[in-house]
C-alpha cells in the first residue's frame, strides 16, 4: 500500500469519487483499488505470508477438534478443566478489550472530545476482543451449540458465570451498536448512523455498568476455587476488584499498543487528524493507565495484608508473584512515569507493552500457572497452543480487514465535503 500511495493512488475514504459518482460496494471492499492492484499489495506484504502459514496449519486443527472432540487437541485434564482457550482467550482477551468502555466514557460521558480521534479504535478494539473471546469460548465448550442455553433455556442465576454470559452477550450487542456508526457511514446508511448516535449516552452508560460487573465477575469466578488458586493470587473479598481495576490499564495500554502498530504499518490509512493527535493522546492514555496501575498495585498489597499472606512471599511462589508485580506493575509504572514526565511517546509505548504483558501474566497465573498449585503443573497440548495462536491470527486478520476499510482511523468524507 505504501508503494501505491507513492504512485499517487489514494485509498477509498469518501462517499463520492472525485468525479462525483458513488463508490460501489465492490470498490469499497477493494479499498478503491482495482482487483489487480489489490491482490498484488496483499501478496507483497510478508506479514500476510505468516498469517497464511498459521492458517494452513491451524484451521485444519480447528476442524479436527470439532470432528473428534476436545480430547484430541487437549490433555483432557480433569484437574485443569480450563486450559489455554479460556486462560488466554477469555481471561486475557476480555481485560485487554476494556478499552471500548474506557474511551467511550472519557469522550461521551466526560465530554473529553480531545480523545475523539482514537475513540473509534478503542471501541473496535473492545468489540473484536470480546467477539474473539466468545470464539475461544466456542472452541472450548464441550457442546458449543448450546451456547445460548443460559440465556433462553435453563437458568442458573446464582452462578457467576451466568452473569458473565449475560453481560458479555449484552455488551457485545452494545459494542456492535457503537461500532455500527462507522459501518453505516461506510456503507452509506445515514439514517442508521443518526439513529445510533442519538442513543450514544445510553449505550455508553450501559457499557460502563456491564463492564464493571463482568470484568469483576471474571475474577469472582476464581473465588469458587479457594485452595486451588494459590493464596497470593486469591482473595475472596478483593478478587473482583483486582480484575476490574487491572482491566483499566489493560484496556488503555492495549489501545496504545494497537495504535503504535497501526501508525507504523498502516499509516496510509490514518488521516492527518489521527496522525497529528496520536502523540498527545498516547501520553494522556499513559497517564490514565498509570493511575489505574497505581491503584491496582495498592489494592494488590492491601489484599496480601488483609489475608496476612506475607509468609508466602518467601516461597518459590512468592518469588514468582513478586516477579509478576515488579515486572508487570512496578516496572511498567516506572517506564510510564518517566515517559509521561519527559513527554516521551516511545517510553509510554514501551510502558504500555509491559503493562499488557503484565496483565497477561497475571491472568495466566491465576487461571493456569498458580491454579492447582499444590497438585502438578499442566503444560498445554501442542495442538491447544496452535489453535490458540490460529484464533489470534484470525483476530488480527479481521482487525486489519476492518481498519483498512471502515472509517476508524480516518474521518469519512460525506457528500457535502467531497
Amino acid at each position, binding site marked *: 500500500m505504501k508503494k501505491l500511495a507513492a504512485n499517487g493512488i489514494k485509498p477509498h475514504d469518501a462517499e463520492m469519487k472525485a468525479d462525483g459518482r458513488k463508490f460501489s460496494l465492490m470498490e469499497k471492499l477493494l479499498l478503491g483499488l482495482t482487483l489487480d492492484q489489490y491482490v498484488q499489495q496483499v501478496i507483497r506484504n510478508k506479514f500476510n505470508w505468516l498469517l497464511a502459514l498459521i492458517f494452513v496449519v491451524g484451521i485444519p486443527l480447528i476442524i479436527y477438534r470439532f470432528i473428534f*472432540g476436545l480430547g484430541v487437541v487437549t490433555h483432557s485434564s*480433569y484437574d485443569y478443566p480450563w486450559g489455554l482457550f479460556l486462560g488466554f482467550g477469555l481471561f486475557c482477551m476480555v481485560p485487554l478489550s476494556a478499552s471500548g468502555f474506557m474511551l467511550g466514557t472519557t469522550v461521551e460521558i466526560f465530554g473529553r472530545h480531545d480523545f475523539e480521534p482514537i475513540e473509534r479504535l478503542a471501541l473496535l478494539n473492545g468489540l473484536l476482543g470480546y467477539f474473539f473471546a466468545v470464539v475461544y469460548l466456542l472452541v472450548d465448550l464441550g*457442546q458449543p451449540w448450546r451456547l445460548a442455553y443460559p440465556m433462553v433455556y435453563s437458568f442458573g442465576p446464582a452462578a457467576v458465570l451466568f452473569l458473565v454470559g449475560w453481560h458479555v452477550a449484552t455488551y457485545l450487542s452494545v459494542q456492535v451498536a457503537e461500532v455500527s456508526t462507522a459501518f453505516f457511514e461506510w456503507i452509506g446508511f445515514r439514517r442508521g448512523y443518526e439513529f445510533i448516535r442519538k442513543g450514544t449516552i445510553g449505550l455508553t452508560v450501559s457499557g*460502563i455498568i456491564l463492564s464493571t460487573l463482568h470484568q469483576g465477575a471474571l475474577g469472582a469466578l476464581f473465588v469458587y476455587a479457594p485452595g486451588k488458586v494459590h493464596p497470593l493470587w486469591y482473595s475472596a473479598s478483593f478478587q473482583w476488584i483486582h480484575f476490574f481495576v487491572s482491566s483499566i490499564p489493560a484496556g488503555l495500554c492495549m489501545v496504545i499498543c494497537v495504535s503504535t502498530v497501526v501508525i507504523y504499518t498502516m499509516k496510509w490509512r490514518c488521516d492527518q487528524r489521527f496522525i497529528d493527535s496520536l502523540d498527545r493522546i498516547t501520553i494522556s492514555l499513559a497517564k490514565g493507565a498509570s493511575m489505574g496501575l497505581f491503584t491496582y498495585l495498592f489494592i494488590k498489597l492491601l489484599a496480601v495484608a488483609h489475608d496476612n499472606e506475607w509468609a508466602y512471599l518467601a516461597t518459590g511462589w512468592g518469588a514468582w508473584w513478586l516477579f509478576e508485580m515488579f515486572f508487570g506493575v512496578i516496572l511498567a509504572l516506572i517506564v510510564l512515569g518517566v515517559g509521561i514526565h519527559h513527554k516521551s511517546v516511545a517510553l509510554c509505548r514501551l510502558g504500555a507493552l509491559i503493562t499488557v504483558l503484565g496483565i497477561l501474566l497475571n491472568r495466566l497465573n491465576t487461571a493456569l500457572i498458580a491454579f492447582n498449585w499444590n*497438585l502438578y503443573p499442566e503444560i498445554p497440548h501442542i495442538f491447544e497452543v496452535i489453535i490458540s495462536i490460529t484464533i489470534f491470527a484470525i483476530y488480527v486478520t479481521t482487525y486489519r480487514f476492518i481498519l483498512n476499510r471502515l472509517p476508524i482511523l480516518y474521518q469519512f468524507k460525506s457528500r457535502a465535503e467531497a
Partner: protein
Amino acid sequence: MSKITRRKFLAGSMAGGAAIAMAPTKKAFGANLEGFPDGMGVLVDMTRCVGCRSCEAACNKEQNLPEPDKSFDDYSVFDERPHGHYRRPTEKAYTVVNRYDPVDEQPVYRKIQCNHCNEPACLTSCFVNAYTKTPEGAVIYNDKVCVGCRNCMIACPFGIPAYSYSSAINPIIKKCIFCYDTRLKNGQTPACVEACPQQVMVFGKRKELIKIAHDRIRRSPVKYVDQVYGEKEVGGTGWLYLSGVPFQEAGFNISLPSEPIINNVKDFLAIVPMVLAIWPALFTGFHLLATKGKSHGHGDDHSHDGQEEH
C-alpha cells in the same frame, strides 16, 4: 444536626430502595440453598476398609461404565500415581479406592466419590443449573442442558466431576449420582454400599449418621480420630468419614473452610444490584456536569454533519 442526619438517612434509604427494586430483575443472585433435613447420606468407616475394590466393581456395573483398564482384583492400581498424585474419579470410574501409607501405621484405604454436599459448589457454579440437590440427598446432573463450560470442575472442592472429553458430539460431566435413578429414588441402598464385604459403609439419614459416628468415636476414642470429616466441611456433606489416622495422612484436604463455597462469592454478588442501581444515575450526572455549558452536544464531529439541512 438532626437535619443532616435525616437527609443522609433518606439518601441512604433511597439508594437502598433502588437497589432492592433492581434486584429482582436480575433474578435473585446469591440464592441460598437450605440443606434438606431428611437427606440421606453414607458413613464411611475407614478403619474397616481392606481395599478389596468391590465397591468400585459394583459401581462400574450399576452405572454401566466401560471396562476398566485394569480388572477390579488387580491391586497394583494402589501404586499408580497419575501426574504424581493419587487416583481420582474419572469419566470411567465414579468411585476409586486409594491406599495411603501413614508413617508407623497400617496402610489406610479410602474410598472417594462425590460427597453429595449440602450446598454443592458444583451446583451453585453452574450457569444452566444442570445440578439438582434432591430431597433424598443426592446431587444429580442433567446432561440435557449442560453446555460443557466445566466450571463445576473448577468449583468442586473435592475434585470429583470428570468430563468425557473424548466424545465430540455429546461430551458430558461424569460423576457419582448416589445411584439416584436406580436405587436412592426408591429408598434403596447404593450399589457400592451394598457390595462392601466389610460393612465399611452405613447408609441412612445424614442426621442419624452423625450421631452414629460420634457414638463410635465416644466408645473407642483410641481407635478413632475425634473428627467426622464432612460434618462441617464446606457446609457439610452427605457422605461422612471416620478415620483411625489424622485425616491429612489419608489424603483428605483439611484446609477446607466450614462455610459453603458459595459464601465466598456473596461479596461479589452483593455489589451487582448496587452497580445496577447507582451507576446509571452517577454517570449520567457526570455527563451533565462535564458537558454543561458546552454547545457541541454529543460532539458529533466524526461526521461533520452540521451542514445537513435538518
